[in-house]
């Protein structure tokens, strides 16, 4: 933030903060263009950073130390840093898709990525409203588009998790078995439990039955 105010050029994962983002985000619409969604989130994170910086610097100018000012606004700083991490994950997701050569795979991951981006915008809609980055009409379009994405991902959902390539042993789950034989697996697991090794549990014999007979 200090360097931005001094007009210096930022590099690395914060280089997007150099951009001016003066335009409105008219390209954010029901098509969910990834570049438009990313730019919107980058804008949000820059606005949050500058907003927090002003609050911190105001506090310092009124006589507080940097540490006092930081502590005073630390919850807002936390939210701002989370927004920056969201930009990083979106950016790397989009970059990774750009490198995929198989069309079918790129297509399904693009749908997943679009959902990821729009879901994160909708979940944090308050920030976008605070800085006037979206209109009411755009929010309505984004929400509708987000729900439409669900039906696009739905046919590939099982393949998307099969691709993680976890063996049944690693999943260690009766519910998540590759063959889907869930209920038999639950019953087989129960047979292993030491608590089922005896028909009558010791505590029932020693405590419960005598108590009931009293």
């Amino acid at each position, binding site marked *: 933030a200090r360097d931005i105010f001094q007009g210096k050029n930022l590099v690395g994962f914060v280089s997007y903060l150099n951009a001016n983002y003066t335009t409105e985000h008219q390209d954010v619409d029901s098509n969910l263009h990834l570049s438009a969604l990313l730019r919107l989130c980058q804008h949000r994170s820059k606005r949050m950073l500058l907003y927090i910086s002003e609050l911190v610097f105001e506090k310092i100018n009124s006589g507080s130390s940097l540490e006092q000012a930081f502590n005073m606004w630390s919850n807002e*700083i936390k939210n701002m840093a989370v927004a920056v991490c969201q930009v990083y994950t979106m950016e790397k997701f989009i970059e990774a898709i750009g490198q995929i050569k198989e069309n079918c795979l790129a297509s399904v991951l693009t749908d997943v990525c679009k959902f990821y981006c729009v879901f994160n915008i909708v979940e944090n809609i308050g920030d976008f409203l605070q800085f006037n980055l979206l209109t009411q009409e755009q929010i309505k379009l984004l929400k509708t588009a987000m729900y439409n994405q669900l039906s696009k991902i739905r046919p590939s*959902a099982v393949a998307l998790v099969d691709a993680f*390539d976890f063996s049944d*042993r690693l999943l260690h789950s009766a519910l*998540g078995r590759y063959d889907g034989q869930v209920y038999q697996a639950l019953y087989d697991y129960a047979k292993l439990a030491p608590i089922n090794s005896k028909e009558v549990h010791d505590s029932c014999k020693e405590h419960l039955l005598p108590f009931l007979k009293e």
Partner: protein
Amino acid sequence: IHPNLIKERKGATFDPYTLTCLLWGGDEVVKHKRNLVASLENDPNLQDENLSDFLSQEEKIDFAIKKTIYLFRKLGMNEREYFMFLFQNFYPSQQLGFPLHFAMFASTLKLLCNPEQANYWLPKAFNLEIVGSYAQTELGHGTFLKGLETTAVYDPLNEEFVLNTPTITSTKWWSGQLGKVANYCIIIAQLYIKNKCYGNHPFVLQIRSLEDHSFMPGVITGDIGPKMALNSIDNGFMKLDNVRIPRNQLLMKYDQVLKDGTYISGPNKKSMYASMMTVRCAIIMASAQSLAAACTIAVRYSVVRQQSEAEQGAGEQSVLNFQTQQYRLFSALSTTYALFFAWKSVNEACQQILTDAAQGKTDQFLFLHSILAGLKSQSTWLATKYIQTCRECCGGHGVSSASGLPLLESHTAVSCTYEGDNTVMILQTGKFLLKC
């Protein structure tokens, strides 16, 4: 195979194996991992995975050490990078017997030894002639490293450091086999020479005998008590009372203390954080992986589980067909993929920056430290949140240990705290952003 899953797999729009290769580093790596698993699959010594669910804490520690050593013996050191994966594959409810040996002890030695020290220590560590842990955090001191109280006072007459944990709050505390298993550790202590404090420095310290595993003179270690998860790894504490170690057990790649007590400051004060950065990188990966496992369980089960009629008389349908189930599960699934790709990117950056740092180029260190702190927090928070979502999506059966989800959730939830409390970590990112 359940007919619903057959139908889903037939309807997929892509070949999952191409995606598997993209996620796990290519066809060769995937095949190698599968071959390793296959070669161990029928080993009679690795058939007791369900048994481990029902063990006490002491039995869990015993079980984990025994099985870890079995894998080391069976596979040798050549497959070192796959030990964690293999162990998790065969014993998902357990942890590798000494996970921090390679992750923190050996990697710190590699990063911070000078050439002479490296020749001596690295073969011992990497061939598992010794078992190491890490001792930085103290009962009363965590993130604020300047506040650590453990002292290392240089004695020029004997050319030794004298180590002490002088107060109860300075008792070392590291939840990674420091208490019962390790016989060496990297200890972080305030260096004093002629009454002047030079700040925190890393030392290599023997804590238990190589003959009978008893305490070395002046050392007491133990387990501070059971914890929320990861109970096959001890919750170690350590007290030191005038423990003497030779001068060359200060790791001197950067900062040095000469025989006469002259202190030579190295170029990079942040280098001590390097091993923590690699661990944070691994935590991001582990978060993505745990969330991926939870999604696999919940999505497959949501296809098998049938409930409610969308229209009267239409019969029950897969719960994955309901919008609320899709919204919850696909937000978890899309987050998993986002975390995977973020990890791949930051891992590449991490390897590059640490390689550069080893050659003295440290200008990217702060950047890496900051983004790793942020992503560690983000990934563990999100994984914890969405694993819980996946568990809720499995209804009543999700509560059962047999679902695998309570275990995944508790193991992931604790990662929000270990290796740095998330809020403190993300504030480090925030501080960096305000400064730059």
